[in-house]
């Protein structure tokens, strides 16, 4: 990880530490309780944006609520900055929560209060004078670029504007952590993009640590460096976003990655018997996948074609930037002499491209 998005403190510092957290619900009486979160351990470093992704019902919302104890774990430990949250007395817990902002899918602004009053809500009891509170509210609203709406009521705002107000409110007590529970799921793609940019900026400028819960791979891909994939209350895979994307291991993760990649269309094309993937004799259909380490600056495909005197006909391509690295791949039909095709594929493998032969129409030697 590079130091671009966090103040350089030298070493990674754990800010949020969950250990063996279990949270069960008795939804139906007389039935055994269901574990919404089942023995989850994870750490979030100071200053990073950590994603938790899963389909609805995977337990991610419950998990994020275990961080600020909106849901009290049945067992396990929740440490924020070294402090065991589950051991705090109510009064201390309320104080600790002021340093953990939270935003929601449905924004949860109070309809009877104006934008300014909503943002001022958590400032009561902060020790600021009325005048200071007013100034703070202005600053916060300017920070989220919605300074002109201070006297509007939430019902007069669009979804994106509401989420900006909610962010300002969550930041009122200068928290160190911001929990985002499906914060963009109720927004259209364009607004989602704008809110994600804002979150990324806040992470950078305030050194704010974020935990982002989402069912949209797009969101994780855009702003997270590390993420965990959740399924049925458990974390099935976690690590650098880049690794998760380029080499998903768990079927659930693969599923998620597929939802965002155009390359997944290949399977459909093959199943439908599309003429695009019909091979003539001697041709090979391959999928070339790039990793973080792949040297994509080099013209790999044309080099391979030139050096080995083969033709590569690109059927599908999807390359994108994830965590400042290029990942993705192409699907291509390789035409040429059988031995030379092997050579070309080996050349690509040597350049750290993952090569998978999908269909081989060469006559076996």
């Amino acid at each position, binding site marked *: 990880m590079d130091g671009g998005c966090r103040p350089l403190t030298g070493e990674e510092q754990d800010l949020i530490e969950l250990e063996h957290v279990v949270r069960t619900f008795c939804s139906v009486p007389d039935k055994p309780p269901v574990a919404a979160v089942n023995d989850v351990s994870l750490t979030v470093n100071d200053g990073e944006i950590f994603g938790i992704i899963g389909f609805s019902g995977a337990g991610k919302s419950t998990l994020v609520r275990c961080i600020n104890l909106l849901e009290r774990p049945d067992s396990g430990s929740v440490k924020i900055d070294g402090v065991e949250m589950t051991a705090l007395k109510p009064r201390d817990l309320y104080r600790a929560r002021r340093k953990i902002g939270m935003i929601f899918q449905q924004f949860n602004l109070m309809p009877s209060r104006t934008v300014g009053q909503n943002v001022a809500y958590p400032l009561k009891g902060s020790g600021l004078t009325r005048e200071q509170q007013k100034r703070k509210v202005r600053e916060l609203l300017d920070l989220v670029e919605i300074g002109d709406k201070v006297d509007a009521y939430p019902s007069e705002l669009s979804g994106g504007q509401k989420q900006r107000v909610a962010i300002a409110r969550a930041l009122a*007590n200068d928290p160190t952590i911001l929990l985002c529970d499906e914060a963009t799921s109720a927004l259209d793609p364009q607004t989602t993009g704008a809110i994600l940019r804002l979150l990324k900026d806040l992470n950078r400028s305030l050194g704010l640590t974020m935990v982002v819960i989402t069912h949209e791979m797009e969101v994780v891909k855009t702003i997270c460096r590390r993420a965990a994939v959740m399924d049925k209350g458990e974390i099935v895979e976690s690590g650098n976003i880049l690794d998760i994307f380029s080499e998903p291991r768990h079927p659930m993760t693969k599923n998620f990655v597929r939802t965002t990649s155009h390359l997944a269309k290949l399977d459909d094309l093959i199943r439908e018997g599309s003429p695009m993937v019909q091979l003539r004799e001697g041709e090979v259909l391959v999928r070339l996948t790039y990793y973080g380490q792949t040297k994509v600056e080099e013209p790999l495909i044309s080099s391979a074609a030139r050096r080995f005197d083969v033709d590569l006909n690109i059927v599908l391509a999807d390359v994108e930037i994830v965590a400042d690295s290029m990942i993705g791949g192409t699907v291509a039909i390789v035409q040429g002499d059988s031995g030379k095709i092997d050579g070309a594929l080996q050349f690509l493998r040597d350049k750290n491209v993952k090569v998978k032969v999908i269909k081989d129409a060469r006559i076996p030697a």
Partner: protein
Amino acid sequence: MQESLLELLKAWLPNLMKRLPEFWKATCDTLLMEVWAGSICFALGLVFGIVLTVTKPDGIMENRPVYQTLDKIINLFRSIPFIILLTALMPLSRLIMGTAIYVRGVIVPLVFGATPFFSRQVESALAQTDKGLIEAALSMGSSPFEIIFRVYLRESVAPIVRAITITTISLLGLTAMAGAVGAGGLGDFAIRYGHDRNMVDITWVTVVVLVIAVSIVQWLGDRLARKHTH
């Protein structure tokens, strides 16, 4: 002009015009019952409604014994017909108010009759508060008491005003019934003269006065509720 109007009223409403002072007294008695019983009932009902809301399962101060007890008591008093409550509570009324008749004597049964109803109204008004707001307030470090005052009550002004409107109007009905046991008021007036002595004009005028009272309360309530809806 004025005299001719008076003559007209005397011709149309002969019985009422002969008993005008008594009619004013009855109207004032009804108003008095309404204000006293209403104020006590609103204060108590608000507290009970809040307690029900916060102690119910999944509430912010979940407490099964408190919730169950209050819930059952309210159901009990809601199922007793008011006319029975009126007589059954006479000893309690004598104990608290010193008398079981007139306006003073009927305040206790009126409060017992209307408070459970209003408590339920408050409970359902508060239940309209979006759960997400409570969650947001908790996440901002609000204590349960803060949430009661700064979220539940603040966000429920309009529905609570509507609950007060409904309860005030139904309380008006109860005060009329209370007349039957010697509380005085418009109900008593209408029964004694309008019904017992078949003075139809008195019945009509009483009804008109009550309709006007209900309309005013409803209009005020609607206006206030609208003012607090954003």
